[in-house]
C-alpha cells in the first residue's frame, strides 16, 4: 500500500528530521509576526511598523523594495531612511534567496499552506488550470499602473501587506480578502495564489534568481521516485530537471527564482536526496 506523503521519511529519519524545515519555518513566520505584534499588544518595542517598512531596535530601518519601487514609479523620491531600509532588505534576500520571503516570512503562506494541506488530506484533486505566468503580468501591472494613477496601486489590495498590517493594527473587512484567498487555493486552484498570482512573490523571485543559498538534489542517484517531494513542493515543476536530468547533463542544483527555499523536499525525502547548499562551495 502507498504510504501517505512524508510517512516514509518519518519512519526512516524520525519525526523531527522529517519535519525540521517545516517546524523551523513556522517558528520563523510566527516569531517575526509576534515581534511586530509585541509592540502594540504588550508595549515591547523590538520592531516597529510592518513588512512594508519598519524600524528594528530603534536603529535599523527596513523597507520592502517592491513597495518602494511602486512608490518611486508613482513619482515619489523616498527619504534616505526608506532607501537604506530597502537596500538592507534587498541584500538579505539577494543572498538567502528571494522567495525565502514567501516561505519563511510571509503570513499569507500559512493560509495557503493550510489550504494545500487540507486539499491533500481531503483528497481534493480537481484544480482549474491557470498560467503560473499571471504573477509576472501582475508584477508588470503593479509597476506600470502607478505611472498612470500616481498612487501605489497594488498596496490597496495586496493581501500580503494587508494581512500583516491587519494583524498588527486592525483587520476590518480585510478578513474577506484573506478568506477569499484561502477558498481560492482550497477549492479552485492548487497553489493558486502563491504559485500563480502573487506579484510580490514574482518580485522576490526575480530578486533571488542568482541567490547564494540554494537547495541541491546532490544525492539524486539515491532517489527512489516516491514523488513525495513533488507532492509537497509549492512549485513542483522545478524539481524535474535537477532530480531526473542527470543523463541530459542537467545540474542537480535547483537554481531558479521559483524555489522558495522552504526545505520541505528535504524533510519528506526518506533517502536524503536534497540538502541546502551554498552555490559557490557545493
Amino acid at each position, binding site marked *: 500500500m502507498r504510504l501517505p506523503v512524508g510517512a516514509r521519511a518519518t519512519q526512516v529519519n524520525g519525526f523531527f528530521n522529517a519535519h525540521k524545515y517545516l517546524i523551523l519555518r513556522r517558528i520563523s513566520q510566527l516569531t517575526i509576526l509576534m515581534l511586530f505584534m509585541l509592540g502594540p499588544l504588550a508595549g515591547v518595542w523590538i520592531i516597529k511598523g510592518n513588512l512594508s517598512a519598519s*524600524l528594528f531596535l530603534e536603529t535599523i530601518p527596513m523597507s520592502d523594495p517592491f513597495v518602494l519601487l511602486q512608490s518611486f514609479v508613482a513619482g515619489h523620491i523616498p527619504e534616505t531612511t526608506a532607501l537604506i531600509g530597502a537596500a538592507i532588505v534587498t541584500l538579505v534576500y539577494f543572498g538567502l534567496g528571494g522567495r525565502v520571503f514567501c516561505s519563511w516570512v510571509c503570513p499569507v503562506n500559512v493560509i495557503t499552506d493550510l489550504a494545500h494541506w487540507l486539499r491533500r488530506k481531503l483528497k481534493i484533486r480537481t484544480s482549474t488550470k491557470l498560467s503560473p505566468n499571471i504573477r509576472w503580468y501582475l508584477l508588470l501591472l503593479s509597476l506600470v499602473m502607478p505611472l498612470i494613477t500616481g498612487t501605489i496601486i497594488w498596496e490597496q489590495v495586496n493581501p500580503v501587506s494587508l494581512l500583516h498590517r491587519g494583524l498588527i493594527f486592525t483587520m476590518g473587512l480585510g478578513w474577506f480578502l484573506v478568506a477569499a484567498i484561502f477558498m481560492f487555493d482550497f477549492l479552485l486552484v492548487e497553489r493558486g495564489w502563491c504559485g500563480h498570482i502573487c506579484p510580490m512573490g514574482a518580485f522576490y523571485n526575480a530578486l533571488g534568481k542568482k541567490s547564494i543559498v540554494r537547495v541541491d538534489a546532490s544525492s539524486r542517484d539515491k532517489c527512489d521516485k516516491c514523488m513525495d517531494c513533488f507532492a509537497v513542493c509549492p512549485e513542483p515543476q522545478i524539481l524535474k530537471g535537477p532530480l531526473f536530468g542527470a543523463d541530459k547533463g542537467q545540474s542537480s542544483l535547483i537554481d531558479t527564482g521559483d524555489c522558495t527555499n522552504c526545505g520541505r523536499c528535504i524533510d519528506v525525502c526518506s533517502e536524503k536526496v536534497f540538502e541546502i547548499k551554498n552555490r559557490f562551495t557545493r
Partner: protein
Amino acid sequence: MAVAGVGLAAYTAKSSGLDARALRPPGALNGIDFLSACVRCGLCVEACPYDTLKLATLFEPVTTGTPFFEARSVPCEMCEDIPCQTACPTGAISPDLASIDDAKMGLAVLIDQENCLNYQGLRCDICYQVCPVMDEAITLDIRRNERTGHHAMFIPTVHSDACTGCGKCEQACPLEKEAIKVLPLEIAKGELGHHYRWGWKEKEKAGESLIGEMLELPHGLPSGDTK
C-alpha cells in the same frame, strides 16, 4: 489582465478621495502625492502617543492602509516634536514641516450656525477656549444680539492662516452633534478666480489708486446731460 487593471484602477480611483471626516497626520503631503509616498507601514501610528492615528482597513472610505484620524473621537494633540513626522521613513509626512503650529491638517468650519450655542447669544465659548492656537485660529467676534435687542453675541470665527486642523474644537463641542467640524482643506477652502484682484490691496501695493481717486460716472439721463 486588462480587466484586472481596469478594476484595480477603478477601486483606486474610488478609494483615493479622502473621506470628508478623515484627516491626515500633520505635515502629510497633499492628496495624490501622499498616496504615491505612503507605504502604509504604520510607523506614524505607533509613534503617536495619543492613539490619534489609525490605518484604514479594506473598503473603508479612506485609501487602504493609509493613516488618518477622526477629530470628533481623538484629535491631534499637536506634539512639539511631531513624533509621527520623525517616524515616517519615506517622507509621506514631509520633513519640511518645521513647527507643529504651521501644520495644515484641515480647517475648522463652524458649519451649523443654527445650533451653535454662541450663535444663539449664549457664552459657550468652548471651541475658543480649547484651541491650542487660542485667539488666533478662533477669535470671538462681537455682534449685536438682534433677538434680545440689548445683548452681544460672541461669534466664534475661524482664521485659516492660524488654524492647524488639529480638531480639538470639534472634539470639545458640547452639542449632541458638533456644530464646528474640521474638514480637509480641499473641501473647506474656496479659491478666488485667478484673474480677480482686490482693489484695496492693489492700491496698497501700487501706493496709489490705479484708476484715479474719484470716478466720474455718466448719470445716464434721457436728455444726454451729464449734470
